[in-house]
Protein backbone atom coordinates (compact mmCIF):
# COMPACT_ATOMS: atom_id res chain seq x y z
CA UNK A 1 0.00 0.00 0.00
CA UNK A 2 1.46 3.35 -1.04
CA UNK A 3 1.31 6.51 0.99
CA UNK A 4 -1.41 7.79 -1.35
CA UNK A 5 -3.55 4.90 -0.21
CA UNK A 6 -2.98 5.91 3.38
CA UNK A 7 -4.47 9.36 3.01
CA UNK A 8 -8.04 8.35 3.69
CA UNK A 9 -6.92 5.88 6.32
CA UNK A 10 -5.10 8.68 8.09
CA UNK A 11 -8.16 10.93 7.93
CA UNK A 12 -10.33 8.12 9.23
CA UNK A 13 -7.81 7.51 12.02
CA UNK A 14 -7.30 3.93 10.96
CA UNK A 15 -3.48 3.96 10.90
CA UNK A 16 -1.35 2.59 13.67
CA UNK A 17 1.17 4.82 15.40
CA UNK A 18 4.08 3.65 13.26
CA UNK A 19 2.10 3.90 10.04
CA UNK A 20 0.98 7.37 10.99
CA UNK A 21 4.56 8.50 11.62
CA UNK A 22 5.68 7.13 8.28
CA UNK A 23 2.79 8.79 6.55
CA UNK A 24 3.53 12.18 8.10
CA UNK A 25 7.19 11.92 7.11
CA UNK A 26 6.19 11.10 3.56
CA UNK A 27 3.68 13.92 3.54
CA UNK A 28 6.34 16.41 4.57
CA UNK A 29 8.72 15.29 1.91
CA UNK A 30 6.41 14.80 -1.06
CA UNK A 31 4.69 17.62 -2.88
CA UNK A 32 2.47 15.19 -4.81
CA UNK A 33 1.34 13.55 -1.61
CA UNK A 34 0.46 16.93 -0.13
CA UNK A 35 -1.55 17.72 -3.24
CA UNK A 36 -3.42 14.47 -2.93
CA UNK A 37 -3.97 15.14 0.75
CA UNK A 38 -5.48 18.53 -0.03
CA UNK A 39 -7.71 16.95 -2.66
CA UNK A 40 -8.86 14.39 -0.13
CA UNK A 41 -9.75 17.11 2.35
CA UNK A 42 -11.68 19.02 -0.30
CA UNK A 43 -13.45 15.82 -1.31
CA UNK A 44 -14.46 15.16 2.29
CA UNK A 45 -15.75 18.70 2.51
CA UNK A 46 -17.82 18.37 -0.65
CA UNK A 47 -19.26 15.06 0.44
CA UNK A 48 -20.22 16.54 3.76
CA UNK A 49 -21.89 19.50 2.07
CA UNK A 50 -23.62 17.29 -0.46
CA UNK A 51 -24.84 15.05 2.34
CA UNK A 52 -26.26 18.01 4.22
CA UNK A 53 -28.00 19.39 1.15
CA UNK A 54 -29.52 16.10 0.03
CA UNK A 55 -32.58 15.71 2.15
CA UNK A 56 -35.96 14.25 1.34
CA UNK A 57 -38.72 16.78 0.95
CA UNK A 58 -41.23 17.22 3.69
CA UNK A 59 -44.08 15.79 1.68
CA UNK A 60 -42.13 12.60 1.05
CA UNK A 61 -43.00 11.00 4.37
CA UNK A 62 -46.77 11.64 4.19
CA UNK A 63 -46.78 10.49 0.57
CA UNK A 64 -45.02 7.22 1.31
CA UNK A 65 -47.02 6.49 4.43
CA UNK A 66 -50.24 7.36 2.64
CA UNK A 67 -49.29 4.95 -0.10
CA UNK A 68 -48.82 2.30 2.53
CA UNK A 69 -52.17 3.25 4.04
CA UNK A 70 -50.94 3.78 7.54
CA UNK A 71 -50.86 7.53 7.81
CA UNK A 72 -54.61 7.87 7.52
CA UNK A 73 -55.32 5.43 10.26
CA UNK A 74 -52.73 7.02 12.44
CA UNK A 75 -54.13 10.44 11.69
CA UNK A 76 -57.63 9.33 12.55
CA UNK A 77 -56.43 7.67 15.71
CA UNK A 78 -54.46 10.70 16.74
CA UNK A 79 -57.40 12.97 15.93
CA UNK A 80 -59.78 10.77 17.89
CA UNK A 81 -57.37 10.65 20.77
CA UNK A 82 -56.99 14.41 20.66
CA UNK A 83 -60.74 14.88 20.58
CA UNK A 84 -61.19 12.55 23.52
CA UNK A 85 -58.56 14.38 25.50
CA UNK A 86 -60.11 17.72 24.62
CA UNK A 87 -63.57 16.50 25.58
CA UNK A 88 -62.29 15.11 28.84
CA UNK A 89 -60.55 18.33 29.71
CA UNK A 90 -63.66 20.29 28.73
CA UNK A 91 -65.84 18.13 30.98
CA UNK A 92 -63.40 18.54 33.82
CA UNK A 93 -63.33 22.27 33.31
CA UNK A 94 -67.12 22.45 33.25
CA UNK A 95 -67.39 20.28 36.34
CA UNK A 96 -64.85 22.36 38.17
CA UNK A 97 -66.58 25.57 37.15
CA UNK A 98 -69.94 24.22 38.28
CA UNK A 99 -68.57 23.12 41.61
CA UNK A 100 -66.81 26.40 42.08
CA UNK A 101 -69.97 28.29 41.22
CA UNK A 102 -71.98 26.23 43.69
CA UNK A 103 -69.42 26.82 46.42
CA UNK A 104 -69.42 30.55 45.74
CA UNK A 105 -73.21 30.67 45.77
CA UNK A 106 -73.40 28.68 49.00
CA UNK A 107 -70.83 30.90 50.64
CA UNK A 108 -72.70 34.02 49.52
CA UNK A 109 -75.96 32.63 50.90
CA UNK A 110 -74.23 31.75 54.17
CA UNK A 111 -72.72 35.20 54.47
CA UNK A 112 -76.04 36.79 53.66
CA UNK A 113 -77.80 34.64 56.25
CA UNK A 114 -75.22 35.39 58.89
CA UNK A 115 -75.44 39.07 58.09
CA UNK A 116 -79.17 39.00 58.28
CA UNK A 117 -79.06 37.17 61.57
CA UNK A 118 -76.60 39.69 62.96
CA UNK A 119 -78.77 42.61 61.88
CA UNK A 120 -81.80 40.93 63.32
CA UNK A 121 -80.01 40.25 66.58
CA UNK A 122 -79.01 43.88 66.77
CA UNK A 123 -82.46 45.17 65.96
CA UNK A 124 -84.37 42.53 67.99
CA UNK A 125 -84.46 44.34 71.40
CA UNK A 126 -86.39 47.29 69.94
CA UNK A 127 -88.51 45.24 67.67
CA UNK A 128 -92.18 44.83 68.62
CA UNK A 129 -93.34 41.60 70.08
CA UNK A 130 -94.85 39.15 67.73
CA UNK A 131 -98.51 39.92 67.26
CA UNK A 132 -101.25 37.49 67.76
CA UNK A 133 -102.75 36.45 64.57
CA UNK A 134 -106.36 35.94 64.68
CA UNK A 135 -108.08 34.15 62.04
CA UNK A 136 -111.75 34.08 61.76
CA UNK A 137 -113.36 31.34 59.90
CA UNK A 138 -117.11 31.57 59.55
CA UNK A 139 -117.18 33.94 62.49
CA UNK A 140 -117.00 30.98 64.83
CA UNK A 141 -113.47 29.69 64.87
CA UNK A 142 -110.64 31.87 65.88
CA UNK A 143 -107.06 30.82 65.80
CA UNK A 144 -104.42 32.21 67.98
CA UNK A 145 -100.93 31.86 66.87
CA UNK A 146 -98.59 30.97 69.69
CA UNK A 147 -96.46 33.90 70.54
CA UNK A 148 -93.46 31.72 70.85
CA UNK A 149 -93.75 30.44 67.33
CA UNK A 150 -94.97 33.22 65.11
CA UNK A 151 -94.37 31.30 61.90
CA UNK A 152 -96.36 28.27 62.91
CA UNK A 153 -99.53 28.80 60.99
CA UNK A 154 -102.34 26.44 61.28
CA UNK A 155 -104.14 25.41 58.19
CA UNK A 156 -107.35 27.20 57.52
CA UNK A 157 -110.44 25.49 58.73
CA UNK A 158 -113.46 25.61 56.61
CA UNK A 159 -116.96 24.83 57.31
CA UNK A 160 -118.11 22.55 54.69
CA UNK A 161 -121.80 22.16 54.31
CA UNK A 162 -123.20 18.67 54.65
CA UNK A 163 -124.38 18.78 51.11
CA UNK A 164 -120.92 19.10 49.72
CA UNK A 165 -119.66 16.06 51.53
CA UNK A 166 -121.51 13.67 49.34
CA UNK A 167 -120.32 15.00 46.08
CA UNK A 168 -117.35 16.73 44.72
CA UNK A 169 -117.42 20.48 44.74
CA UNK A 170 -118.69 21.89 41.55
CA UNK A 171 -116.20 24.58 41.00
CA UNK A 172 -113.41 26.21 42.81
CA UNK A 173 -112.79 29.78 41.98
CA UNK A 174 -110.81 32.50 43.55
CA UNK A 175 -112.30 35.00 45.90
CA UNK A 176 -111.87 37.85 43.47
CA UNK A 177 -113.82 36.10 40.81
CA UNK A 178 -116.46 35.19 43.29
CA UNK A 179 -116.74 38.69 44.56
CA UNK A 180 -117.07 40.07 41.06
CA UNK A 181 -119.57 37.49 39.94
CA UNK A 182 -121.67 36.97 43.04
CA UNK A 183 -121.36 40.22 44.85
CA UNK A 184 -124.95 41.18 44.55
CA UNK A 185 -126.41 37.69 44.52
CA UNK A 186 -126.33 37.22 48.26
CA UNK A 187 -125.22 33.67 48.07
CA UNK A 188 -123.68 31.71 50.87
CA UNK A 189 -120.26 32.49 49.65
CA UNK A 190 -117.78 32.89 52.38
CA UNK A 191 -115.35 35.72 52.08
CA UNK A 192 -111.77 34.72 52.50
CA UNK A 193 -109.91 35.62 55.54
CA UNK A 194 -106.53 37.15 55.40
CA UNK A 195 -103.79 36.00 57.59
CA UNK A 196 -100.74 38.06 58.05
CA UNK A 197 -97.74 36.19 59.22
CA UNK A 198 -94.93 38.09 60.83
CA UNK A 199 -93.62 40.99 58.89
CA UNK A 200 -93.66 39.22 55.58
CA UNK A 201 -97.27 39.96 54.89
CA UNK A 202 -98.14 36.57 53.51
CA UNK A 203 -101.67 36.48 52.25
CA UNK A 204 -103.45 33.22 52.25
CA UNK A 205 -106.58 32.91 50.26
CA UNK A 206 -108.27 29.65 50.96
CA UNK A 207 -110.44 28.21 48.25
CA UNK A 208 -114.05 29.11 48.41
CA UNK A 209 -116.75 26.71 47.69
CA UNK A 210 -119.75 27.98 45.93
CA UNK A 211 -123.01 26.43 46.45
CA UNK A 212 -125.21 26.29 43.46
Amino acid at each position, binding site marked *: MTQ*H*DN*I*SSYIDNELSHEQEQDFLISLASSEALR*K*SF*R*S*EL*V*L*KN*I*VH*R*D*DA*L*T*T*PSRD*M*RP*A*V*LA*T*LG*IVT*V*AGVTETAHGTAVAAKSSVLKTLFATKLNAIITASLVSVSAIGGYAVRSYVAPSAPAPTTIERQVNNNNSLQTPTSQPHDVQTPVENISPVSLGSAPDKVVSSKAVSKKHLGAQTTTQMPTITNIGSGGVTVEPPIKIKP
Partner: protein
Amino acid sequence: MKKELKDILPSDQKAPKDPSPVVESNELDNISLSAVSLTPDRETQLFHNFLEGDDAAFRTLYDAFERSLYIYCCRILKNESEAKDLFQDIWVRMYKMRGERIQVRRFSGLLFTVARNYCLNALRDNKGYAAISLDDISDETEIIVRTKDIENADLRELLQRALSQLPFNQRESFILREYVGYSYDEIAEIMGTNSANVRARAHRARERLRTVVGAWMELRTSEKE
Protein backbone atom coordinates in the same frame (compact mmCIF):
# COMPACT_ATOMS: atom_id res chain seq x y z
CA MET B 1 -34.11 -20.97 6.31
CA LYS B 2 -32.92 -19.81 2.95
CA LYS B 3 -34.60 -16.86 1.39
CA GLU B 4 -33.77 -15.72 -2.12
CA LEU B 5 -34.00 -12.12 -3.13
CA LYS B 6 -36.26 -12.98 -6.02
CA ASP B 7 -38.73 -14.01 -3.33
CA ILE B 8 -38.33 -10.69 -1.62
CA LEU B 9 -38.43 -8.64 -4.78
CA PRO B 10 -41.71 -7.99 -6.54
CA SER B 11 -42.66 -10.51 -9.16
CA ASP B 12 -42.50 -7.97 -11.96
CA GLN B 13 -38.86 -7.23 -11.25
CA LYS B 14 -36.03 -9.42 -12.29
CA ALA B 15 -33.47 -10.71 -9.86
CA PRO B 16 -30.22 -8.79 -10.06
CA LYS B 17 -27.21 -10.09 -11.89
CA ASP B 18 -25.06 -9.05 -9.01
CA PRO B 19 -22.73 -11.67 -7.53
CA SER B 20 -24.80 -11.60 -4.35
CA PRO B 21 -28.31 -12.33 -5.49
CA VAL B 22 -29.03 -14.82 -2.74
CA VAL B 23 -29.53 -13.56 0.75
CA GLU B 24 -29.60 -15.97 3.59
CA SER B 25 -31.22 -15.03 6.79
CA ASN B 26 -28.15 -16.00 8.77
CA GLU B 27 -26.15 -13.60 6.61
CA LEU B 28 -28.52 -10.82 7.53
CA ASP B 29 -28.19 -11.84 11.13
CA ASN B 30 -24.56 -10.85 11.07
CA ILE B 31 -25.22 -7.38 9.75
CA SER B 32 -24.53 -4.74 12.34
CA LEU B 33 -24.90 -1.25 11.02
CA SER B 34 -24.04 1.70 13.15
CA ALA B 35 -25.00 4.77 11.16
CA VAL B 36 -28.50 5.09 12.51
CA SER B 37 -29.80 6.47 15.71
CA LEU B 38 -31.54 3.25 16.72
CA THR B 39 -29.61 0.70 18.67
CA PRO B 40 -29.39 -2.80 17.16
CA ASP B 41 -31.67 -4.28 19.76
CA ARG B 42 -34.19 -1.53 19.37
CA GLU B 43 -34.04 -1.80 15.59
CA THR B 44 -34.62 -5.53 15.75
CA GLN B 45 -37.42 -5.17 18.22
CA LEU B 46 -39.15 -2.57 16.10
CA PHE B 47 -38.89 -4.66 12.98
CA HIS B 48 -40.31 -7.72 14.67
CA ASN B 49 -43.08 -5.61 16.14
CA PHE B 50 -43.84 -4.38 12.65
CA LEU B 51 -43.91 -7.94 11.30
CA GLU B 52 -46.49 -8.70 13.94
CA GLY B 53 -48.62 -5.80 12.75
CA ASP B 54 -47.39 -2.75 14.61
CA ASP B 55 -47.58 0.18 12.20
CA ALA B 56 -46.09 2.59 14.71
CA ALA B 57 -42.92 0.51 14.70
CA PHE B 58 -42.76 0.80 10.94
CA ARG B 59 -43.11 4.57 11.15
CA THR B 60 -40.27 4.70 13.63
CA LEU B 61 -38.08 2.63 11.34
CA TYR B 62 -39.04 4.84 8.43
CA ASP B 63 -38.08 7.96 10.33
CA ALA B 64 -34.75 6.43 11.32
CA PHE B 65 -33.74 5.34 7.82
CA GLU B 66 -35.55 7.79 5.58
CA ARG B 67 -32.63 10.14 5.05
CA SER B 68 -29.89 7.57 4.60
CA LEU B 69 -31.94 5.52 2.17
CA TYR B 70 -32.94 8.62 0.23
CA ILE B 71 -29.32 9.72 -0.13
CA TYR B 72 -28.35 6.22 -1.17
CA CYS B 73 -30.99 6.13 -3.91
CA CYS B 74 -30.22 9.64 -5.13
CA ARG B 75 -26.49 9.11 -5.37
CA ILE B 76 -26.73 5.65 -6.87
CA LEU B 77 -29.25 6.61 -9.53
CA LYS B 78 -28.35 10.28 -10.02
CA ASN B 79 -31.79 10.97 -11.44
CA GLU B 80 -33.63 12.36 -8.44
CA SER B 81 -37.18 11.80 -9.67
CA GLU B 82 -36.37 8.20 -10.45
CA ALA B 83 -34.70 7.91 -7.06
CA LYS B 84 -37.85 9.19 -5.38
CA ASP B 85 -39.98 6.60 -7.12
CA LEU B 86 -37.55 3.88 -6.22
CA PHE B 87 -37.37 5.11 -2.66
CA GLN B 88 -41.11 4.75 -2.37
CA ASP B 89 -41.08 1.32 -4.00
CA ILE B 90 -38.50 0.12 -1.51
CA TRP B 91 -40.64 1.15 1.44
CA VAL B 92 -43.68 -0.44 -0.13
CA ARG B 93 -41.71 -3.64 -0.51
CA MET B 94 -40.59 -3.48 3.09
CA TYR B 95 -44.15 -2.95 4.21
CA LYS B 96 -45.29 -5.98 2.28
CA MET B 97 -43.12 -8.08 4.54
CA ARG B 98 -45.65 -7.53 7.26
CA GLY B 99 -46.94 -10.81 8.54
CA GLU B 100 -44.03 -12.79 7.12
CA ARG B 101 -41.70 -14.79 9.29
CA ILE B 102 -38.35 -13.18 8.57
CA GLN B 103 -35.58 -13.56 11.08
CA VAL B 104 -33.13 -10.69 10.76
CA ARG B 105 -30.82 -9.25 13.29
CA ARG B 106 -30.70 -5.79 11.81
CA PHE B 107 -33.43 -4.13 9.83
CA SER B 108 -30.97 -1.80 8.08
CA GLY B 109 -29.11 -4.69 6.48
CA LEU B 110 -32.27 -6.03 4.92
CA LEU B 111 -33.39 -2.54 3.90
CA PHE B 112 -30.20 -1.69 2.03
CA THR B 113 -30.01 -5.12 0.48
CA VAL B 114 -33.47 -4.66 -0.97
CA ALA B 115 -32.57 -1.11 -2.00
CA ARG B 116 -29.44 -2.32 -3.72
CA ASN B 117 -31.33 -4.81 -5.83
CA TYR B 118 -33.98 -2.27 -6.74
CA CYS B 119 -31.25 0.14 -7.83
CA LEU B 120 -29.54 -2.54 -9.86
CA ASN B 121 -32.77 -3.34 -11.64
CA ALA B 122 -33.37 0.33 -12.34
CA LEU B 123 -29.85 0.80 -13.67
CA ARG B 124 -30.22 -2.22 -15.88
CA ASP B 125 -33.41 -0.78 -17.30
CA ASN B 126 -31.52 2.47 -18.05
CA LYS B 127 -28.67 0.82 -19.86
CA GLY B 128 -27.25 3.94 -21.42
CA TYR B 129 -26.77 5.54 -18.07
CA ALA B 130 -25.16 2.66 -16.26
CA ALA B 131 -22.76 1.70 -19.01
CA ILE B 132 -20.55 4.77 -18.62
CA SER B 133 -17.81 4.48 -16.07
CA LEU B 134 -14.49 6.05 -15.32
CA ASP B 135 -12.91 2.73 -16.08
CA ASP B 136 -13.79 3.28 -19.69
CA ILE B 137 -12.82 6.94 -19.83
CA SER B 138 -10.15 7.14 -17.21
CA ASP B 139 -7.80 9.04 -19.51
CA GLU B 140 -10.43 11.64 -20.19
CA THR B 141 -10.79 12.80 -16.65
CA GLU B 142 -8.70 15.86 -17.24
CA ILE B 143 -10.75 16.64 -20.31
CA ILE B 144 -13.95 16.42 -18.32
CA VAL B 145 -12.65 18.75 -15.70
CA ARG B 146 -11.21 21.29 -18.09
CA THR B 147 -14.25 21.80 -20.24
CA LYS B 148 -15.75 25.24 -20.18
CA ASP B 149 -18.96 24.04 -18.52
CA ILE B 150 -17.16 22.54 -15.61
CA GLU B 151 -15.09 25.63 -14.99
CA ASN B 152 -18.07 27.52 -13.68
CA ALA B 153 -19.85 24.58 -12.23
CA ASP B 154 -20.29 24.03 -8.60
CA LEU B 155 -17.90 21.57 -7.08
CA ARG B 156 -20.86 19.66 -5.76
CA GLU B 157 -22.19 19.14 -9.24
CA LEU B 158 -18.76 18.04 -10.29
CA LEU B 159 -18.72 15.45 -7.55
CA GLN B 160 -22.12 14.13 -8.59
CA ARG B 161 -21.02 13.85 -12.19
CA ALA B 162 -17.86 12.09 -11.20
CA LEU B 163 -19.79 9.76 -8.91
CA SER B 164 -22.21 8.86 -11.67
CA GLN B 165 -19.30 7.79 -13.85
CA LEU B 166 -17.88 5.39 -11.32
CA PRO B 167 -18.62 1.67 -11.63
CA PHE B 168 -21.58 0.57 -9.57
CA ASN B 169 -19.63 -1.37 -6.98
CA GLN B 170 -17.16 1.46 -6.41
CA ARG B 171 -19.91 4.01 -6.29
CA GLU B 172 -21.95 2.02 -3.85
CA SER B 173 -18.97 1.34 -1.62
CA PHE B 174 -18.10 5.02 -1.58
CA ILE B 175 -21.66 6.14 -0.89
CA LEU B 176 -22.26 3.67 1.90
CA ARG B 177 -18.94 4.55 3.42
CA GLU B 178 -18.87 8.34 3.05
CA TYR B 179 -22.52 9.32 2.95
CA VAL B 180 -24.26 6.71 5.06
CA GLY B 181 -21.29 6.15 7.32
CA TYR B 182 -21.19 2.35 7.46
CA SER B 183 -18.05 0.44 8.23
CA TYR B 184 -16.40 -1.80 5.65
CA ASP B 185 -17.73 -4.88 7.38
CA GLU B 186 -21.24 -3.57 7.32
CA ILE B 187 -20.97 -2.65 3.65
CA ALA B 188 -19.56 -6.08 2.92
CA GLU B 189 -22.61 -7.67 4.48
CA ILE B 190 -24.90 -5.57 2.32
CA MET B 191 -22.94 -6.15 -0.86
CA GLY B 192 -22.42 -9.82 -0.18
CA THR B 193 -18.66 -9.72 -0.34
CA ASN B 194 -15.73 -9.49 2.02
CA SER B 195 -14.43 -6.45 3.81
CA ALA B 196 -11.14 -6.27 1.91
CA ASN B 197 -12.96 -6.17 -1.38
CA VAL B 198 -15.14 -3.34 -0.20
CA ARG B 199 -12.15 -1.46 1.09
CA ALA B 200 -10.40 -1.79 -2.26
CA ARG B 201 -13.48 -0.62 -4.15
CA ALA B 202 -13.96 2.37 -1.90
CA HIS B 203 -10.32 3.24 -2.19
CA ARG B 204 -10.42 3.13 -5.96
CA ALA B 205 -13.50 5.29 -6.02
CA ARG B 206 -11.91 7.77 -3.68
CA GLU B 207 -8.78 7.88 -5.77
CA ARG B 208 -10.79 8.66 -8.90
CA LEU B 209 -12.74 11.36 -7.19
CA ARG B 210 -9.61 12.79 -5.66
CA THR B 211 -8.11 13.07 -9.10
CA VAL B 212 -11.12 15.01 -10.33
CA VAL B 213 -11.09 17.29 -7.33
CA GLY B 214 -7.33 17.82 -7.68
CA ALA B 215 -7.75 18.79 -11.30
CA TRP B 216 -10.48 21.23 -10.38
CA MET B 217 -8.26 22.75 -7.72
CA GLU B 218 -5.40 23.15 -10.16
CA LEU B 219 -7.72 24.82 -12.59
CA ARG B 220 -8.91 27.25 -9.96
CA THR B 221 -5.36 27.99 -8.89
CA SER B 222 -4.25 28.69 -12.42
CA GLU B 223 -7.24 30.97 -12.93
CA LYS B 224 -6.32 33.01 -9.90
CA GLU B 225 -2.72 33.33 -11.02
